[in-house]
């Protein structure tokens, strides 16, 4: 991305997420519809994953509840846990919900404790856990943190 593209992306993002108007964040990728926040949370940058026909693995509950998302992340080895603090040898995912308790977004924790998100069909950003919270079109509030042990190969990469 050029400096001008990053500046325009930052402007647009700041307008949408009140928590990022004052807090720090970094734009990390150009816009793409190849994948979304759920795909990005599980390191899949080739699929747009969402409950419902044509966007969700077969055999999993297809609603937008936290329970449905917990179930699908369980297939990837994630289990519910307390808090988004960095824990050695664990990687974490945060689920965000709106006022109707419907999941709106997922973010993945990086090895330095920061969080990375794919914003719909737009950019990847690095941000704080609460940075993308707020009323729509922001993502509401954090409802659930999930974690799984970091695979040995990933620990080496870290």
């Amino acid at each position, binding site marked *: 991305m050029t400096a001008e593209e990053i500046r325009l992306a930052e402007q647009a993002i700041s307008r949408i997420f009140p928590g990022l108007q004052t807090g720090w964040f970094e734009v990390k990728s150009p816009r793409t519809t190849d994948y979304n926040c759920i795909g990005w949370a599980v390191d899949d940058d080739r699929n747009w994953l969402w409950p419902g*026909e*044509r*966007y969700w693995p077969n055999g999993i509950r297809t609603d937008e509840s936290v329970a449905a998302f917990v179930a699908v992340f369980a297939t990837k080895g994630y289990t519910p846990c307390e808090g988004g603090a960095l824990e050695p040898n664990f990687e974490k995912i945060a689920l965000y919900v709106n006022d109707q308790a419907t999941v709106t977004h997922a973010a993945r924790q990086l090895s330095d404790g920061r969080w990375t998100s794919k914003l719909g069909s*737009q950019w990847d950003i690095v941000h704080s856990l609460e940075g993308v919270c707020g009323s729509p079109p922001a993502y509401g509030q954090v409802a659930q943190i999930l974690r799984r042990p970091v695979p040995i190969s990933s620990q080496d990469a870290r």
Partner: protein
Amino acid sequence: MNPAIAQPRFLHGREIAPFPSWEQRVPIVPSGRCPIALSEDQRTLSRREHDLFLSFNRVSSYRLPLELQFFVLAIQWKRDTLVESSPWRMAVHPAYQRIIGLGWQAVPLILRQLACEADFWFEALVAITGEQPVLPEHAGKIEAMRLDWLCWGREHGYDC
């Protein structure tokens, strides 16, 4: 009142264009005094402005051409769902629903948009056409879903 600064003007409660520049350059009355009557030129101009306003009023009540209507709705939808991940929430947006409401006449416009860039037009196309050309193995692969629909469009005679 400084005649060089255009004051807001209202006609039937709606703001209209300021006085033309010639009047600001050549004040009718000396500075500090209010005009007590309109000149013949001003009266003519006011009548013409009034007619123009009324004609605009009539024009603005016309329905926009289909293509423009589609683009206005598409822009509203894209603006409001910029960071949305749920295809279902995108599809229930009022502007998206109105595009679906345009029916078959919106299909060539949607396919042309889809030919330009991948976006979540799939639900609108399914709703309007009743077809589902996306192969099961392409589920969640937006580019492949886009190509499936463009292929369907060409098979049905659309220029996309």
